[in-house]
């Protein structure tokens, strides 16, 4: 086969090209020809196809995402915002923290183990590329129905992949979620988040500047795995009629990634790089074009110098390969020798593949012949932008009219008790220990809180006890009923979780999982959710620092529930003041904070007991969320509470069961006069938390709530070995533990 050089492309304008097979639309192909003034070479076409994919270019979502910038609240903590590999926030004492959540949904359905494993690998490299040492990971996961046979294939594979990769990197896994819903049957959501820590002066950016600086590719050799992963796999709907897509899933090598992390951190320490980018989706096409586009000047790359795992790869394949565990650094010539020494120390292969030029083009050569000559911005940052049509679906009104308040409610203590056991034993509310016990949560020796706590928390300075907390939340059922409110409720819950742990919420990352943008109903959900999230971030003062959009999560015509997953990062000056969820001290008083209304739309109770989804989600009151958070943080700092648990899906009873089982104590409760027992236990009103207050602190605590205007109701006392709701029912802890902890192992085994 003749090499398709720039010269050859110019001479053969009419050659047919496989743009459609590469996932490009006809008008997109026409635009590439217009930009170049000729037909693209095969290599150029490969680069544009992956970089202009939905996954890399955000072409459908961009017009909505810009609200996160436009509505960004004033926030002094933000050091690096949207657009880099990950956002960076100032957490004080000279430290900066970078964090981000990403999706690896499509690959994880095709090949659960490798899909999930490389999802962890990718987010960790994003964090590393900012100059930070990765210190923790979290994994929000969503699967199809718990009892569906395919869930038995996907879930264990995903969990083993996350564990197999993450455990081998030495990163504690401190949180996340596991949700089951039939809507995710063919489209499991495998999101992965990572936190990294650095000093302010160590922040690195992805840009290539300074003519003569060397472009160094280091890490694993490039192979044939993951070719077209972003364009063919992540940007299309699954369809049975097409051939298997397994070769488009990458294969991970966590040992190589561990070496890459340590090697890169040592390189950072000696200040040897001028710019750096990890290789993830779209591989070298992405790294070279983004580095060149963000810097000044151009770049020249000798593609045949790239170390290969498979010598038969074509230049197009090398450019598109998504082989894992690779990084690309821009290094001044005088630092190259030392850079190479450090790579050799860590047994990491490093190769100079090109240099920064004073031109304006990205030029790539193959054995001396030019195969790419493009303006890098047109590849990396000036891709197509779509104003996709969107419209409120015609079924939305009927869905909202189907009020969950009309569902039959339990009558009498015995029925309440049965529904409590049903709820806490349902896969969504059950203990996820079978899953999280397959992840190392202790490594690095800084884990303060991990699952099943409200937020994960790690210490970042052992001398001062400075720490950070992270919670991720999302509720697709709420978002289906009202995407605007659903996104806000996801933010509110993560915000509340961080505050319940004692940390002050600072900033947000999001992973927006939706169906096909080509469906106006899905696009409406997306538009509403982004608008809701941007508005709420503005109100709460927590800017979105970055994140990821995953579209085409649908099978045929059926999309998943709109599922915005929101991660909130918080800071705590002294981790010894953290608040756990467990009720550990008998005699302590249990207070319910916030207002409880009759809110059952989208609730766990309506799902577990009635398999119902309809009505409206709980109402959002962001000012109340902020007040609740301030109270929780003050109470934690001043030692007024010993335990706190946010109330979300499953309502008060779910939180009580978790706090009692975690602490190994029972609780005696009284239904407040203003509420009926059912609403008291099962309502999912937002802006609430339950806390355990030592008797000596009761006056001080309630005075603070009264002064600040937060409703605080004394509902009981930590006591005994059962949960007793006076006059209604009582359940021994042992029975609750069996119901809560037996479910997941029973499903998978």
């Amino acid at each position: 086969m003749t090499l398709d050089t720039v010269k050859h492309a110019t001479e053969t304008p009419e050659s047919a090209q496989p743009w459609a097979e590469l996932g490009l639309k006809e008008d997109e192909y026409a635009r590439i020809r217009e930009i170049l003034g000729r037909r693209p070479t095969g290599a150029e076409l490969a680069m544009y196809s992956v970089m202009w994919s939905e996954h890399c270019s955000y072409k459908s979502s961009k017009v909505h995402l810009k609200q996160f910038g436009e509505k960004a609240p004033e926030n002094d903590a933000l050091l690096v915002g949207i657009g880099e590999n990950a956002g960076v926030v100032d957490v004080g004492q000279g430290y900066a923290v970078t964090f981000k959540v990403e999706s690896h949904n499509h690959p994880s359905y095709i090949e659960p183990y490798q899909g999930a494993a490389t999802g962890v690998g990718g987010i960790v490299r994003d964090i590393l590329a900012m100059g930070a040492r990765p210190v923790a990971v979290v994994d929000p996961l969503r699967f199809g129905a718990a009892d569906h046979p395919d869930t038995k294939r996907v879930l264990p594979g995903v969990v083993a992949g996350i564990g197999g990769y993450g455990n081998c990197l030495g990163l504690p896994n401190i949180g996340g979620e596991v949700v089951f819903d039939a809507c995710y049957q063919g489209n499991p959501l495998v999101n992965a988040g990572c936190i990294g820590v650095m000093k302010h002066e160590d922040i690195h950016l992805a840009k290539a500047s300074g003519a003569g600086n060397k472009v160094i590719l280091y890490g694993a050799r490039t192979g044939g795995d993951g070719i077209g992963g972003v364009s063919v796999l992540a940007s299309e709907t699954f369809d049975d009629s097409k051939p298997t897509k397994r070769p488009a899933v990458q294969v991970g090598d966590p040992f190589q990634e561990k070496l890459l992390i340590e090697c890169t951190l040592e390189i950072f320490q000696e200040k040897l790089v001028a710019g750096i980018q990890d290789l993830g989706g779209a591989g070298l096409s992405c790294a070279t074009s983004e580095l060149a586009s963000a810097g000044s000047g151009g770049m020249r790359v000798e593609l045949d110098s790239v170390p290969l795992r498979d010598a038969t790869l074509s230049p197009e394949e090398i450019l598109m390969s998504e082989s894992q565990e690779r990084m690309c650094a821009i290094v001044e010539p005088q630092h190259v020798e030392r850079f190479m020494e450090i790579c050799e120390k860590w047994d990491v292969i490093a190769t100079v593949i090109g240099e920064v030029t004073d031109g304006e083009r990205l030029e790539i050569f193959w054995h001396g012949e030019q195969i790419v000559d493009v303006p890098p911005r047109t590849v990396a940052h000036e891709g197509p932008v779509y104003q996709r049509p969107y419209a409120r679906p015609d079924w939305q009104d009927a869905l909202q009219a189907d009020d969950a308040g009309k569902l039959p409610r339990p009558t009498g203590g015995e029925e309440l008790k049965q529904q409590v056991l049903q709820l806490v034993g349902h896969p969504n509310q059950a203990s996820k220990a079978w899953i999280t016990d397959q992840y190392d949560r202790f490594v690095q020796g800084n884990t303060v809180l991990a699952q099943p706590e409200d937020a994960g928390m790690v210490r970042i300075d052992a001398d001062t006890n400075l720490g950070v907390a992270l919670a991720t939340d999302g509720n697709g059922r709420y978002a289906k009923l009202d995407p605007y409110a659903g996104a806000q409720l996801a933010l509110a819950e993560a915000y509340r979780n961080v505050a319940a742990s004692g940390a002050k919420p600072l900033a947000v990352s999001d992973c927006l999982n939706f169906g096909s943008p080509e469906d106006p109903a899905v696009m409406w959900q997306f538009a509403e959710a982004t608008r809701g999230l941007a508005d709420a971030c503005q109100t709460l003062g927590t800017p979105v620092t970055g994140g990821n959009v995953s579209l085409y999560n649908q099978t045929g015509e059926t999309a998943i529930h709109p599922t915005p997953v929101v991660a909130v990062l918080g800071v705590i000056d002294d981790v010894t003041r953290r608040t756990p969820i467990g009720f550990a001290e008998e005699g302590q008083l249990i207070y319910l904070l916030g207002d409880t209304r009759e809110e059952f739309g989208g609730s766990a109770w309506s799902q577990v007991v009635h398999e119902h989804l309809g009505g409206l989600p709980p109402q959002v009151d962001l000012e109340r969320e902020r007040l609740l958070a301030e109270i929780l943080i003050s109470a934690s700092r001043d030692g007024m509470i010993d335990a706190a648990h946010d109330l979300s899906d499953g309502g008060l009873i779910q939180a009580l069961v978790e706090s009692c089982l975690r602490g190994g104590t029972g609780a005696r409760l009284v239904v407040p006069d203003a509420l009926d027992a059912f609403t008291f236990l099962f309502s999912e009103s937002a802006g609430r938390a339950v806390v355990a207050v030592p008797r000596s602190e009761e006056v001080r605590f309630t005075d603070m709530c009264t002064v600040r205007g937060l409703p605080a109701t004394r509902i009981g006392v930590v006591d005994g070995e059962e949960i007793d709701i006076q006059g209604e029912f009582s359940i021994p802890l042992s029975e609750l533990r069996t119901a809560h902890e037996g479910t997941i192992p029973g499903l998978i085994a």
Partner: protein
Amino acid sequence: MTSRIGVITFPGTLDDRDTQRAVGLAGAEAVPLWHRDKDLKQVDAVVLPGGFSYGDYLRAGAISRFSPVMETVIEQAKAGLPVLGICNGFQVLTETHLLPGAMLRNNHLHFICRDQKLRVENASTAWTADYEAGQEISIPLKNIDGRYTADERTLDELEAEGRVVFRYLDGNPNGSLRDIAGITNAAGNVVGLMPHPEHAVEPLIGTGRTDGLGFFTSILKKLVGA
């Protein structure tokens, strides 16, 4: 002069920095040692920390045993240098035959991370003198290849000579024969175990218990007293 305890880093070692911190908390000086370097920098004792050295792709610990640093460790351990192998470090010690037996994949085939109760069976080794025989402690366990195995004769020997140092309590987490969690050599200077004492040295971190600190105070007392 304070005691110097070396902590080896192999490619893929994960718990080296945690172990260094634990050594420091016990009052000793942690000395980082590098797998390619035969020189032990005149340390008074050595810890082989946990992780997945060389990715454990061949067999846990199978490649690390051939590293230059291990040549010196094997030689000096035979001459009495105190050596502690934790998790992957224990696996390396069995591969070197400083300790008998081997680790197989957990009987349930999963990675398991949990707080694990142990009984200290032998409180006279270099690394357990600060405990009492029969004492129960809880420290984190986290591994996928943690099922201790050896032939019956070796097991009987270990039992007869009091060389089973730790036994799992409240449920064997991985199918280890005779609930063995850790063992020592005949001289008592080389100890290996699967659970992680270095993750249980501070009241707030991890499980919130400090049951693991005794490993590091034990060796320190021995070194200072010697």
